[in-house]
């Protein structure tokens, strides 16, 4: 009976800890945060900015690369002219007519690396521009956009190699359309966490070439991704960045931290609840062991008669409590895992397919399981402490005549 309470308490504890860890994992997937990288931008309200002095050019990037603790700096540049993509035709077996204003960012190919399945470099004017898209966009398309519009779901491999037209210098806002628009195309070459969430990412060289051709600024970068040599260097690097008159854009990081903190808080509250249950289980254990000691007074008398000391008797009671606690803890862990597996199955079949829906909401870590079993053991031992002392204090002669 008391083992049941202990099992329930530790079961809840392990369950909530695993849920917290699982949700944290989901948050980390939605907001992948690197502890070694920062996005450096020009401050939006800098005096120098107003005067047109503060900007990120090759010299600034060189200075950033020279900062102590910086391993690499990757400049990024926005496409600074309007562009649209119009697509009329078959889209995976469906007739589609669509027109999109294209927002593009230029990335250094090294940043995309093996995420690009086809060459991610500028092939020159007249050639298709390779683009990479963010994986999260595909997830949003598949889970939100496609079901609403009755469009087919797509996988990365289905899309890679796909070409759509690109009209540079043209806008759906007539006033913005430039004098000499040009028709070319873009080809999806891969999906990457590095790609921008707003639009698509192109090779930096292609963006520079297009910006230059249309007379837009091709020397000033929009931002620089700076990678520190280690997570410990990030603080120093950030200070050096500020000294250069630049700023760190950590909006996404702050999101992740805030959501993570919320998850942690809820986990903490639920764990406290579990601790309360475990505490009640300890009280329950105490009552159970009191009853057991009272019931077995004669047995205790026999133990004393065959040579057990008072502390031997206490040890016998505590050993029994330890076994109860351990059994309760193991049952609790099994219980937590079973309930979690059931809920996961329910979520798989019962919940709609929302973006970033994880295959499991739980992450059972070895240290949580160990903590659960340890807490169960502790609760049972604490509960049995006073009954054990009472057993040790029994007068053997009286115990035998009970």
């Amino acid at each position, binding site marked *: 009976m008391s083992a049941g309470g202990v099992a329930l308490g530790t079961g809840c504890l392990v369950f909530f800890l695993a849920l917290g860890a699982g949700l944290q994992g989901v948050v980390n997937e939605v907001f992948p945060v690197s502890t070694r990288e920062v996005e450096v931008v020009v401050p939006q309200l800098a005096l120098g900015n107003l005067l047109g002095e503060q900007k990120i050019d090759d010299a600034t990037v060189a200075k950033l690369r020279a900062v102590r603790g910086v391993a690499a700096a990757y400049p990024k540049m926005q496409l600074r002219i309007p562009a649209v993509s119009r697509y009329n035709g078959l889209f995976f077996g469906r007739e589609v007519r669509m027109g999109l204003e294209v927002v593009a960012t230029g990335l250094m190919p090294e940043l995309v690396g093996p995420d690009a399945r086809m060459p991610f470099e500028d092939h020159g004017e007249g050639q298709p521009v390779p683009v990479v898209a963010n994986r999260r966009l595909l997830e949003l398309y598949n889970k939100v956009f496609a079901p609403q519009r009755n469009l087919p779901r797509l996988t990365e491999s289905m899309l890679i190699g796909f070409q759509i037209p690109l009209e540079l210098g043209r806008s759906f806002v007539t006033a913005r359309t430039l004098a000499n628009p040009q028709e070319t195309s873009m080809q999806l070459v891969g999906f990457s966490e590095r790609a921008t969430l707003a639009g698509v990412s192109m090779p930096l060289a292609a963006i520079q070439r297009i910006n230059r051709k249309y007379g837009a600024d091709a020397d000033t970068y929009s931002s620089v991704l700076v990678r520190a040599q280690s997570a410990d260097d990030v603080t120093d690097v950030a200070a050096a960045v500020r000294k250069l008159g630049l700023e760190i854009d950590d909006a996404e990081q702050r999101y992740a931290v805030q959501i993570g903190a919320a998850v942690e808080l809820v986990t903490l509250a639920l764990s406290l609840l579990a601790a309360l249950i475990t505490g009640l289980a300890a009280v329950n254990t105490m009552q159970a062991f009191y009853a057991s000691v009272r019931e077995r007074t*004669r*047995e205790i*008398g*026999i*133990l*004393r*008669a*065959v*040579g*057990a*000391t*008072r502390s*031997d008797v206490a040890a016998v009671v505590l050993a029994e409590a330890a076994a109860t606690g351990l059994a309760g803890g193991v049952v609790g862990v099994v219980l937590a895992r079973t309930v979690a597996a059931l809920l996961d199955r329910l979520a798989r079949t019962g919940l709609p397919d929302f973006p970033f829906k994880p295959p499991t909401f739980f992450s059972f870590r070895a240290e949580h399981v160990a903590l659960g079993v340890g807490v169960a053991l502790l609760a049972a031992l604490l509960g049995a402490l006073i009954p054990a002392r009472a057993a040790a204090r029994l*007068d*053997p*002669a009286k115990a*035998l*005549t009970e």
Partner: protein
Amino acid sequence: MSAIELRGITKRYPPREPGLPQLELLRGVDLTVHRGEFVAVEGQSGSGKSTLLHLLGGLDRDFDGAARVLGCDLRAVTDAELAALRHTQIGFVFQSFNLLPALTALENVLLPDFFGDGVPDAERRAREALDRVGLSDKAGARPAALSGGERQRVAIARALLARPPLLLADEPTGNLDASTGEGVIDLFRQLHWARWR
């Protein structure tokens, strides 16, 4: 040297209800028992036989007078020394409820081995003791599956495990029918004869 040496032992119990006189059970008892003696104490129910036995076995130290058992001054030694005395020098058999119901006969016999410094060669001795009381085939049985006489014999086997020089038995036949009781008393005689002849 005598095994038991009691001088002027007095045992009182506090009154059952306030206002009543306190119960004086033993009054100035002198008793000497030598090694190798086989002694029976007789008395009416409630006369204090069990009380005397608990006192002799160091289970009850709340008395007046001087008591030496196997050279040990019962009122002078520590709790731990008293436990050691019971463990190595004294075997107890009670009237009833001698065994732990959760343990097998063999485990019950082995019980003293769990305490103090254990018992040398306990497993072999336990089987020998069970053999000695004629229960070698019941080693794995739990008390509930044994008859009253068998249970008492398991208790005797346990009392023999540490080969103590002093056996204290409190009405060991009290709960047995006449012929089974005879058998148990015979067993005590044999054990005594084998050790002290």
